[in-house]
């Protein structure tokens, strides 16, 4: 598993576990914002979304907008 695969997996995990938050995508984006280092965030933002679940995709989109 390379680093990007790991990040995709991590993002999906976060999204799945925050699925019961009022706004899961926002909660996922916030979690990544708070706990990932800049390079990891940049890598996931630069990714085309393949392999990401819909909530994670939405979260990454929010991160990209905020960046």
């Amino acid at each position: 598993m390379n680093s990007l695969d790991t990040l995709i997996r991590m993002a999906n995990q976060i999204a799945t576990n925050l699925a019961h938050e009022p706004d899961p995508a926002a909660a996922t984006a916030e979690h990544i914002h708070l706990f990932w280092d800049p390079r990891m965030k940049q890598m996931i933002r630069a990714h085309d979304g393949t392999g990401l679940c819909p909530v994670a995709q939405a979260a990454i989109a929010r991160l990209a907008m905020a960046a």
Partner: protein
Amino acid sequence: MTYQPQADFGTPASRADETVTLTIDGRAVTVPAGSSVMRAAAEQGTAIPKLCATDMLESFGSCRLCLVEIEGRKGTPASCTTPVEPGMVVHTQTPRLQQLRKGVMELYISDHPLDCLTCAANGDCELQDQAGAVGLREVRYPAGDNHLGQCKDISNPYFDFDPSKCITCSRCVRACDEVQGTLALTVQGRGFGSKISAGLASDDFLGSECVSCGACVQACPTATLVEKKVVEIGTPERAVVTTCAYCGVGCTFRAEMRGEQLVRMVPWKEGKANRGHSCVKGRFAWGYAQHQDRILKPMIRASIDQPWREVEWDEAMAYAASELKRISATYGKHALGGITSSRCTNEETFLVQKLVRAGFGNNNVDTCARVCHSPTGYGLKTTFGTSAGTQDFDSVEDSDVILVIGANPTDAHPVFGSRMKQRLRQGARLIVIDPRRTDMVRSPHIAADYHLPVRPGTNVAILTALAHVIVTEGLADDEFIRERCDEDEYRHWADFVALDRNSPETLEPVTGVAADLVRGAARLYATGGNGAIYYGLGVTEHSQGSSTVMAIANLAMATGNIGRRGVGVNPLRGQNNVQGACDMGSFPHELSGYRHISDKAVRDLFERDWGVSLDPEPGLRIPNMLDAATDGVFKAIYIQGEDILQSDPNTAHVAAGLAAMECVIVHDLFLNETANYAHIFLPGSTFLEKDGTFTNAERRIQLVRKVMSPLNGHEDWQVTQMLARALGLDWAYTHPSEIMDEIARLTPSFKGVSHQRLDAEASLQWPVDDKHPDGSPIMHVDGFVRGKGKFVVTDYVPTDEKTGPRFPLLLTTGRILSQYNVGAQTRRTANEVWHDEDVLEIHPVDAEDRGVRTGNWVKLASRAGATTLRALVTDRVAPGVVYTTFHHPETQANVVTTDYSDWATNCPEYKVTAVQVAPSNGPSDWQQDYQAQSTRSRRIVQRDAAE
């Protein structure tokens, strides 16, 4: 201080609030009701002669030496078993008593070897003292039948048993019963034939169920049970109180010394974490401090295929600084990072994270808590507002129901395990949730009311099922929830857990636990009185570790089991200073006191104090560092007191990450496994050689005191400071107390902490601030730190680590009593006699299917790697589950574990790995390759030879 034995008041203190005034030898004394006359006399300063009494044990009344006269009463009652009464008039020294005591003592001495001058306990023997105290001057009895000349039992590596010197006072037997709770010792025979025995008459101490906690040795009033070190060295001449460097219980000991030589570690009775008790590790397993494997000189090498070259400290520091600067200039400052250690002091940990943030210029600092209790930090901060357990250890005395989940306290936190067992024997009820049948489930006089043998990886499901029962059967504490928690969030959570899909019946196929057991356990926890939850790494080291912690918090809040003695949520921390390392800002996203690095106000505070700008972005966690290293962008790391190659998951990936770095600095006692990939080795100091503080699992900050000079010449905080100065930082600390002053200045929860205060008050439990000037034994008493308690929906998400045809079994890992973590310390002690290799526990059915018997070599393989080890066929584990420990590098259990991790914190999923087990005839390829690499990497060119 000059050597004085610890004060012994003869019988335990009474906890009664009301007092009684009596007169002893003409002087009035006021003591708590329920005190013994002996205790009252001792508190007054009158030492009544005694042999079978000691204040660690309940009174026994067998030696007949502590007789007193009480006005208005007939006879001469034993003062240890006679409770005080108002107006009682006691005489402790009269001609009649003197004659009686002399007679009793004469009988004892008539059957005791008179070898005092050559006895190991000479000068430190209660029998000797009491013979003097009663004025015994002669023994009139002629030689006759006696117990002299019996064979010694020297089987235990740490203490001898000489039955010839035994006075059969039963203190050892009672210590094993009352203090330790193992009940390994007994008195065999009757009358003159009475003899202390470890287990059956055929057993010696080593072969018995004795766990070598040493409580019997401490209790023995003669030299019958005596430490081999005392026999070898002699009695101590001074004692220094310090804190144990093993598990998170944080036992305090008197390091009893002769010169700079440690003679023995004796649990400090005033220590509030351990109350005078210890385990085999803390009391006896300190020989590693002087082990020949210790590296005492700095070493460097240009590449890991070269041998090490010993250098002076200046050269090592200059080389380290030049390499770090080169790498920063070449690859950017984010190519550097550091790892703090939960085995080091708060002060040392604080300095390492400061070095990374202020010196390296980034937040790439993490700690070994990443791989153990990081989900505790996340989960409890989210739900309660504080990243720490809620109780002190004493709290268990008021617990009515104890729920232990994913923890094995009798092995991993043995001193607290004994406290827990004491409470259970008093009648508290017990629920154990664990895939294995641990000793808590069933051991002498202990039996869990419910054992839920949950399938590894389904903790969230079982906790949700418990919550389902509590909510749907109306067992929630509505008043507590209304007053203390966010009601909307509670209703959202309650609606979720009440769904049919979360019922014990629906989840039974998932968890593997019968629904009626779950329902019974839930009812007991919710309605059995004060309910306390204790948990360990069996909770955190999962892909839903953080969710499990929050699910536990939900249960406690839903039942009102927070904010008073006897209840709470209690993470049992693995290493001695896990709590402290986390408190000190070791995580890459937060500064000390758990304040996020993105908080400008907090950053401003540190920037002003440190005179640097801080990066507002979180740094890399350990697994992210390793990923970045294999990506070629993370190039240098300073690792203090950790062995990530052995302790972290997926060893091959860790090795690849380390091998990809250009500068690995290992700062440790030994050439550990990580050092095989290091370029610079900085020798570390043991806890005996340094000053500082540790913070235990109950947030208790205690002093670590230097009892001997560091063999390597420097305490660890000094080494970090040397490195910082070599990098150009103007650090000038002269003592760790100054570092603690800085911590207190910058960390609200430590505001009132100082070494001076700790020296005076022995310990403080954070927060120590304006609102809690004397600390906080129990948290969330008047409300949660975050305001309202937060219920979080924790939906069960199955792990991606699936069993299948290739890997049909689930591996879970853990610890054993005699070894500690990666074993770097305990493997270099006589503790090896109990556990000299990691073994694989496998259920008889699974073993039969594979043709495996106990003692057979087996190959343990997962998708990450394979290793070989011996099998132990046992029904402690359920069918489909195998278990091993990770204490030995020859086995490297983490070759098998994967890099799957907790969703919130990246804490590795150590507890669930799909594996296959098959008979084997030799080491795995990894083991063979690694052994060769390890041997090659440990070559050292000594300085003299190099010159």
